[in-house]
């Protein structure tokens, strides 16, 4: 029977199976960062346990790192957390891209960049955006710290077989519509828990036409639709992206490529559920609420309570708009912003920076707006500087920073003040996410750049940059 990539990767990694029990799955790559690992390493030490496969583990510092001056970590607790990771990696012999290392970056940006991420692999990390790696046809999902400890000591996890879901993006994306708009539209249409209990495979013409970076943006936010993992069958583009990467041995490339492509979903394979969205119903998106499903196209208005039938949804809308200080029915284009953040594991790759730079070139950041660009990795930063993108941003009035998670979750000093509003290319608009009392609107890099110029949400398609 024809199989999906999800079943193929799963079956390939079963170490042990028994009825009425989850499967014991082998983990090919364990990515580690400073926030969700210290208690796991401590657990190993308390029980005198070892790391089974340090060679299949890779660590970096991203959540707490300063993006302005790397030499000064103001918060002693942040500093301790980073030092603890360095000490743990040394003690257990795990490779680490520390804050000053040329491979440093957001864990989900550097995995693909280094070629650690490959089709057919099982990849985990104590981070819910691990789904990003699914863009390569890997089964990649976030885990908690207890599971981090379990993987460190056994290189396996007990996992119940997930249901499979296909999300099909049919047709061709319109002018000025990006991967970010696609995933925000999917979450808005199907809901924040549509994918709970499922692994999602994204299919359809629009997905096939996307670059690998765009596919990463889509898979990254699978968890925002409730799916622990979201992936895309590998194709020529996938293999081409990985060619000559540090962890892809050149002499084995052809052989690896053949194996990678063999994981693709077979014609006629059946999913437990299929959802479809048409590309022509998607326009540049802006979230107006406090979870990623609360978003609308730029030409729409904020909803009103009468748009919902369920009382719990009406109540949720009321709470969200009260936190966001918005009124029911107001046009999205009337919302004024004070901050712009271009960065995060969703949108901080070179293609994202190019898209934003294209909008900003020759223009100025609005006088009411503070804007920053935080590249996803040191490598992205170098590449952008080589192309002169840093100059475009700086000339426009953006702050050009060092790589890290930064204002996506504001664990370092990059915080949106209470009561202020940020157009952000990140993935979560939860209350307080970018700072206590801060208000987050999720958008694409191009839409963030447009908002930076005009000081309010503006349809980037009307800015004459795509001519």
């Amino acid at each position, binding site marked *: 029977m024809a199989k999906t990539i999800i079943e193929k990767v799963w079956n*390939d990694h079963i*170490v*042990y199976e028994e009825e*009425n*029990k*989850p499967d*014991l799955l*082998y983990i*090919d790559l364990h990515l580690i960062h400073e*926030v*969700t690992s210290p*208690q796991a390493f*401590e657990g190993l030490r308390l029980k005198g346990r070892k790391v089974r*496969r340090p060679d299949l583990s890779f660590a970096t510092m991203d959540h*707490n790192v300063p993006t302005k001056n790397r030499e000064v970590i103001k918060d002693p*607790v*942040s500093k*301790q*957390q980073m030092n*603890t990771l360095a000490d743990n990696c040394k003690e257990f012999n795990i490779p680490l891209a520390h804050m000053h290392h040329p491979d440093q970056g957001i864990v989900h940006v550097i995995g693909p960049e280094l070629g650690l991420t490959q089709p057919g692999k099982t990849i985990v990390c*104590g*981070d*819910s955006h691990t789904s990003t790696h699914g863009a390569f046809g890997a089964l990649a*999902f976030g*885990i*908690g*710290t*207890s*599971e981090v*400890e*379990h993987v460190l*000591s*056994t*290189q*396996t996890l*007990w996992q*119940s077989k997930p249901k499979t879901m296909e999300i099909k993006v049919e047709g061709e994306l319109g002018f000025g519509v990006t991967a970010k708009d696609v995933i925000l539209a999917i979450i808005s249409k199907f809901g*924040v*828990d549509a994918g*709970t*209990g499922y692994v999602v495979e994204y299919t359809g013409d629009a997905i096939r036409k996307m670059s690998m970076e765009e596919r990463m943006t889509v898979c990254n936010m699978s*968890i*925002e639709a*409730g799916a*622990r993992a979201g992936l895309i069958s590998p194709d020529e583009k996938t293999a081409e992206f990985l060619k000559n990467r540090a962890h892809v041995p050149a002499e084995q490339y052809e052989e690896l490529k053949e194996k990678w492509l063999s994981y693709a979903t077979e014609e006629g394979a059946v999913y437990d559920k299929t959802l479809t969205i048409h590309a022509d119903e998607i326009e540049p998106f802006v979230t107006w609420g406090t*979870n990623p499903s609360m978003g609308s196209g730029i030409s729409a208005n904020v909803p009103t309570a009468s748009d919902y039938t369920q009382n*719990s*949804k009406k109540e*949720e809308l009321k*709470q969200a708009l009260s936190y966001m200080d918005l009124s029911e029915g107001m046009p999205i284009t009337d919302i004024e912003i004070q901050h712009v953040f271009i960065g995060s594991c969703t949108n901080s790759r070179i293609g994202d920076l190019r898209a934003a730079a294209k909008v900003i070139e020759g223009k100025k950041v609005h006088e009411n707006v503070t804007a920053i660009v935080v590249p996803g990795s040191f490598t992205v930063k170098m590449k952008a500087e080589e192309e002169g993108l840093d100059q475009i941003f700086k000339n426009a009035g953006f702050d050009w920073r060092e790589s890290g998670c930064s204002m996506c*979750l504001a*664990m370092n000093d990059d915080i949106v003040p*209470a009561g202020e509003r940020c157009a952000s290319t990140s993935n*979560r608009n*939860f*209350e*307080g*996410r970018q700072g*206590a*009392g801060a208000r987050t609107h999720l958008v694409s890099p191009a839409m963030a750049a447009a908002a930076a110029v005009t000081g309010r949400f503006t349809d980037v398609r009307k800015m004459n940059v795509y001519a």
Partner: protein
Amino acid sequence: MEPVKKLTSSIAPLDRINVDTDQIIPKQFLKRIERTGFGQFLFYGWRFNEDGTPNQDFILNHPAYKNAEILAAGENFGCGSSREHAPWSLQDYGFKVIIAPSFADIFYNNCVKNGILAIRLEEADQLIQAGKEGKSAEVDLESQTVNCDGHTWHFDIDPYWKQMLLNGWDEISITFQYEDAISKYEESHV
């Protein structure tokens, strides 16, 4: 891990859907390197005013729920970030059972690993209501039942996770018993 078996308690009613882990434990408290002491920060943004005083309007600050060991909430509880600090903070605060119509997958797993019983129950809204009326509920994992106000509801749980919770097992010790299978897999695959 402490075994979970049976308990009777008042029910703290959190009448909201899609409660995310950023609300359960905000990011500024994720920098600690210990597993303990997170209860004081639970629902920080909702529990406290900007000046640090308790927000009297937030349900958990009501004296009636001070000793509640059961939390009842709306659908998709624990969505968002994978931070295990969320179940750590709920447990440290005193909750042993969470009842909701549905949970986010990672959060649910994280609860099991820490000996918190997360119960998927479609009728969770009735428990929220009972909690508001000051009623108690009895939860029994062995029989997979919740009793409250003359109603008995049955809940489903994976038999493997049930055994883990009932016995308070350390999962890593169990997995070590499969070491041969892991080594054999590594020989042929890795």
